[in-house]
C-alpha cells in the first residue's frame, strides 16, 4: 500500500484531494515579491487570478515547496508503514521535483524498509492531473508500489497537454516571448496553441482569434481521441473561463459520444501565472490497464 503525494502543480481542488486521499503540497505565491502565500490554502485560485486581472502591472512570483514541506507530510505516513509515491510538476518548469527527490533521499535513510519514490510528471496542471488520477486508480485497485511506479513512468511518456491563451501578456512577462512578438501577436489577434514536450512548453501553432483556436483544438482533439475514446483519461482546465470550458467539454462529449469522468479543473498559479486568465487547456493519457 502506498500514499500518494503531489505538489500543487496537479491543480486538484482541496475537495478532490480529500476525496481521493491525496496529499497536496502547495506552491508558494508572492504578489508583492516579499510575502509568500500557500496556493489554495492562504489564497484561492479565483482570488489570485482576479487580482492579476485587476492589476495588469502585477507579475507574481511562484516558489516551489521545500524538501521540508515534503518531509513534514511524509513522516506520518511512513510511520504508519506506508510507501510513498510523489508526483511533481515537470522539473523543467519548477524546482519542486528536486525538493521531492531530496526529501525522498533523506527519508530513505531514516526509513530504509519503505519505498519512497519521487516521479517527475514532465507535465503540469491537468497534464500532471491525468497522470495523478491514473496513479490513484492504481492504488485503489491494489497495485503494489513498484508496479505502480513502473506503470506511472509509462503513462508519463504517454500523457499530453495542450493549451491556448487569451492574451500574450503573461508569456511576455514571463520572458517566454519577446516584446515584439507580444505586440504584433496582439495586434494580429494571434492565439498560440502550446503543448508540453519532454517537460518543456513548446509552440504547436498560431491561430487568429479565440474562436478559431477553440475550433482547431476541438477538431484536433476529436481526431486524436476517436479510436481510443473509451480508453483514455481526459481532463479539461481553464482560468476564469468556465463558460468556454463547459462549451468545449460539451462539444467533445457530443462528438466522441463519451461522458467525461473528470470535472472541469481550474488551472492554478504554477502554470497559470505564465499563461494568464482566459486560458483553456486539455490533457489526456491512456488508462493504466494498457501499460500493465
Amino acid at each position, binding site marked *: 500500500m502506498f500514499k500518494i503525494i503531489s505538489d500543487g502543480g496537479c491543480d486538484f481542488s482541496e475537495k478532490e484531494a480529500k476525496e481521493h486521499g491525496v496529499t497536496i503540497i502547495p506552491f508558494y505565491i508572492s504578489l508583492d515579491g516579499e510575502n509568500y502565500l500557500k496556493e489554495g490554502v492562504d489564497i484561492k485560485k479565483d482570488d489570485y487570478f482576479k487580482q492579476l486581472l485587476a492589476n495588469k502591472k502585477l507579475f507574481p512570483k511562484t516558489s516551489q515547496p521545500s524538501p521540508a514541506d515534503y518531509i513534514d507530510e511524509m513522516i506520518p505516513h511512513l510511520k504508519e508503514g506506508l510507501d510513498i509515491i510523489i508526483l511533481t510538476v515537470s522539473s523543467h518548469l519548477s524546482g519542486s521535483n528536486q525538493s521531492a527527490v531530496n526529501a525522498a533521499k533523506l527519508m530513505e535513510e531514516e526509513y530504509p524498509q519503505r519505498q519512497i519514490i519521487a516521479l517527475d510528471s514532465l507535465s503540469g496542471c491537468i497534464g500532471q492531473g491525468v497522470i495523478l488520477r491514473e496513479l490513484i486508480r492504481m492504488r485503489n485497485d491494489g497495485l503494489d508500489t513498484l508496479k505502480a511506479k513502473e506503470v506511472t513512468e509509462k503513462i508519463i511518456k504517454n500523457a*499530453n497537454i495542450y493549451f491556448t491563451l487569451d492574451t500574450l501578456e503573461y508569456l511576455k512577462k514571463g520572458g517566454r516571448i*519577446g*516584446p515584439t512578438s507580444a505586440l504584433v501577436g496582439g495586434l494580429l489577434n*494571434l492565439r498560440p496553441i502550446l503543448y508540453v514536450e519532454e517537460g518543456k512548453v513548446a509552440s504547436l*501553432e498560431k*491561430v487568429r482569434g479565440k474562436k478559431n483556436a477553440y475550433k*482547431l483544438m476541438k477538431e484536433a482533439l476529436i481526431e486524436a481521441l476517436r479510436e481510443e475514446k473509451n*480508453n*483514455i483519461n481526459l481532463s479539461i482546465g481553464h482560468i476564469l473561463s468556465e463558460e468556454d470550458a463547459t462549451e468545449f467539454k460539451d462539444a467533445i462529449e457530443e462528438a466522441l459520444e463519451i461522458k467525461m469522468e473528470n470535472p472541469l479543473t481550474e488551472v492554478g498559479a504554477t502554470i497559470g501565472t505564465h499563461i494568464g486568465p482566459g486560458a483553456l487547456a486539455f490533457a489526456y493519457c*491512456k488508462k493504466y490497464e494498457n501499460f500493465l
Partner: protein
Amino acid sequence: MQNFMNSLSGWFLVAQILGLITIGFEFASYQIKNKSKYFLVTGVGSFFWLLMFFSMGMATGMDTQLSLIVAAIYSTFRNLVFWQIFKHNTPKSQEAGLIFLLIMIVVALTAGTFTVLNAPADVRWLHILGLITALGFVVGQYLPGVHYVRISVVFYALVVILTQTPLNILYGDFRWNVMGIAIEGAKILSVIAFYIKYSKEPHKPLIQLSKP
C-alpha cells in the same frame, strides 16, 4: 524568323531557362502546407528569379534590370530568413523574425512610397495598388494557416501581371513579358490547383495532436 533567332543571345536563352526553373519552384511552393518548407521552396524560386534578371541584364543591359534585381534580392533574402525562422520556431527566432518582418515592411513601404510619388499622376493608383498588395503579401506570408498567403499572393500576382503584360497600362504601350506572365500566372494556377485539391481532401484538422 532568322533575324529573330540571331537577335537572341546566349544570356537571353539562359534567362528563359532560369525563368522556367523559377516557374517550377513557384508552382511547387503553393502546393506545400508546411510554412518552413514553403519558404525554402519559394526562397529557392526567388533565387532563380534573381538569376533570371541577372542573365536578362547581361543580355539587354544591366540598367534595365537593376530595380528588378534589387527586388529579387529583397524577395530571396526575406524568404530564406523566414525559412530559418519557421524552421527553428523558438521564442527567440520568432522575435527575431518579427523584427525582420517589420524592417522588411518599412523598407518596402519607403521604396514603394518613393515610387508612388515619382510615378505619373494618371498611373499612380496602380503603383499604390502594387504597394498595398506587396505589403499584404509579405504579411500574408507571415500569418498562420494556409489561406492568407495564398489569397494575398493572387492579388499581388494579378497586379504584377497588370504591370508586365499586354495589359500594361503604365507606359502606354504593349510590352509582352512572357516570362513575367508565366511566373505570376504559375503562382495563381498553383493556388487554384491547391484549392481544387484541398476541396477534395477529406477534412483533416490543421494541427495533429499526439495520439494517446
